[in-house]
């Protein structure tokens, strides 16, 4: 048996936690650069605010109904997510964190436990300890648990828990779940299946294995087994090693100067290098890209990317920044208003197996010690306390965060103040 625990409207719930006045009011949280709605309270959903709706298209609605808007505050959400996950982990021996607000729990070792009561206890404990409401779906496989979670949200909202404990309950859930709502069925497959006469998960369950294999490949077959209650999706307690790391952002305001672009790129490169060191890996190639705003169709567009091969795999901030700036020199063209740039570090290898170069004279041992010291200081002092000069301080390109809430749980100067 597996459980999927999902935080309800997670980003909005995090904002509501420190601002009780938001209770019962329509609240939305916007994506990076205050672009689109990525989390909505039930009240906001009722107003017709769709997921991923651009904020400029719903200004009237926001004003008319007094919708409260927040910029995304990932520091706060990340910290609260960690607390939720820690609480969940204390209940079960095996847990897989699926996303910032979702986790699968393996309940197979809890043979004698009443799983329904466990679900209620989990919900109550997370609510009491952290203050975030969660929904819980319990079923025989991960796919069914995901479905049970959605089912709990739709049909057992008050309880917030649904356990597909027997064949009848599972059949009812399958019959009331649309094809497009099945975990693992994307838009194209949903369209194809609808055209082929499948409407619900129960319909799909009746499909012959050969037909599924032919039309949905072996992944579809795995899905069919999962729907039958036979676990076929791998359990991933630890995430797989990364193949590459990308850091890119849209700018808060479009920029045309190369110096500003270099500053942004150097910051993204430093962030990638820090992530590499945290993972204990090095990269052999660096890809840099820059682009104008493709939505401004009236303007001339420009988008280029370039890959720089490094002499020796590295995770040294200075070397990666140097490569990124070399890439920028190659592709930057003046006269455009750029909207976004980014860097991807590729061909990752473990730090311990880096191949030395023939003409390499750098003191890598010393460099590694230096980077470790920099990471330590930055961790203790917060942010990028020590940085390369090219990373600058001005950061005019910074993301637009007009409605950002304080980082209540991680910054002493932003802790909630209460007047008594």
């Amino acid at each position, binding site marked *: 048996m597996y459980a999927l625990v999902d935080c309800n409207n997670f980003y909005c719930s995090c904002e509501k936690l420190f601002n009780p006045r938001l209770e019962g009011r329509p609240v939305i949280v916007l994506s990076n650069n205050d672009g689109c709605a990525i989390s909505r309270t039930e009240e906001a959903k009722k107003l017709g605010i769709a997921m991923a709706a651009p904020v400029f298209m719903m200004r009237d609605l926001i004003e008319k109904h007094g919708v409260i808007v927040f910029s995304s505050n990932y520091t706060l959400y990340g910290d609260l997510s960690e607390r939720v996950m820690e609480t969940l982990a204390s209940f079960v021996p095996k847990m897989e964190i699926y996303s910032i607000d979702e986790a699968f729990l393996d309940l*197979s070792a809890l043979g*004698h436990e009443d799983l*329904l*009561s466990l679900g209620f206890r989990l919900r109550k404990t997370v609510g009491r300890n952290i203050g975030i409401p969660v929904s819980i779906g319990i079923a025989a496989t991960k796919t069914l648990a995901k479905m049970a979670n959605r089912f709990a949200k739709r049909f*057992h909202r*008050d309880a917030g*828990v649904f*356990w597909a404990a*027997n064949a009848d309950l599972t059949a009812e859930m399958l019959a009331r779940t649309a094809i497009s709502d099945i975990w693992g069925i994307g838009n194209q497959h949903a369209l194809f299946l609808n055209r082929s006469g499948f409407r619900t998960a129960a319909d799909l369950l009746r499909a012959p294995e050969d037909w599924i294999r032919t039309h949905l490949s072996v992944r579809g077959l795995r899905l069919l087994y999962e729907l039958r209650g036979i676990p076929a999706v791998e359990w991933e307690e630890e995430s797989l090693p990364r193949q590459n790391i990308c850091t890119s952002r849209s700018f808060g305001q479009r920029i045309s100067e190369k110096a500003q672009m270099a500053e942004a790129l150097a910051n993204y490169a430093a962030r990638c290098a820090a992530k590499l060191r945290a993972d204990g890996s090095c990269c052999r190639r660096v890809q840099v890209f820059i682009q104008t705003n493709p939505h401004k169709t009236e303007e001339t567009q420009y988008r280029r990317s370039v890959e720089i091969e490094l002499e020796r795999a590295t995770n040294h901030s200075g070397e990666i920044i140097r490569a990124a700036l070399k890439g920028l020199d190659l592709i930057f063209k003046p006269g455009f208003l750029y909207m976004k740039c980014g860097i991807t570090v590729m061909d990752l290898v473990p730090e311990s197996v880096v191949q030395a170069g023939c003409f390499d004279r750098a003191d890598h041992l010393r460099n590694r010690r230096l980077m470790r010291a920099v990471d330590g200081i930055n961790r203790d002092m917060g942010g990028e306390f020590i940085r390369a000069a090219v990373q600058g301080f001005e950061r005019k390109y910074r993301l637009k965060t007009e409605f950002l809430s304080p980082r209540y749980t991680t910054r002493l100067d932003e802790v909630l103040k209460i007047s008594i």
Partner: protein
Amino acid sequence: MMLQPFEEFRPSYIPRLRKLGRRWLVSQTYHRADQPQYEGQKPRINLLFSDYMELGEARLHLNAVKKDRYAAIVDLEKAEHLAKINAMMSEGSDYHIFFAVVRSAKELENLINRKYREKLKAYIEHQTNWRISHQTAVKPTIQLSFGEIFIILKHGNQQIRIKFEEIEKAEERKGEE
């Protein structure tokens, strides 16, 4: 004859359940206690009670057995509900009430392992692709969900959860053959 592992529900349980805050009982028909009927004998209806602390849990249980004509939620804090179940437990009543608890889960597992060992082996052999040597015994774990007994069998990383009734019925089918 089906295995009947549950305790009989006694009036003395009521104040204890209320003290523990487990005020919600869900009733459902209980076939495991069915007895053969003899002519002239008044048939008794067997019911099973499951206790809950949260009304939400009780509601979910009720939803799971909603087709059962005896499915209901009993509130131990309500006088009329108490009067009804006391009447059901009284002498000469048409009902026989059981409580969804076992004296010892370990003992029940041992009993199932002893009594149904061959049937469990046959089930694993025919219904799974597990390759288990004759010497290896797969010990069952019992689980109760919504008044129904399930058996969990584990082998390596694999696990199956089956209605205990399926194992019992397999025995009957063998007898018919």
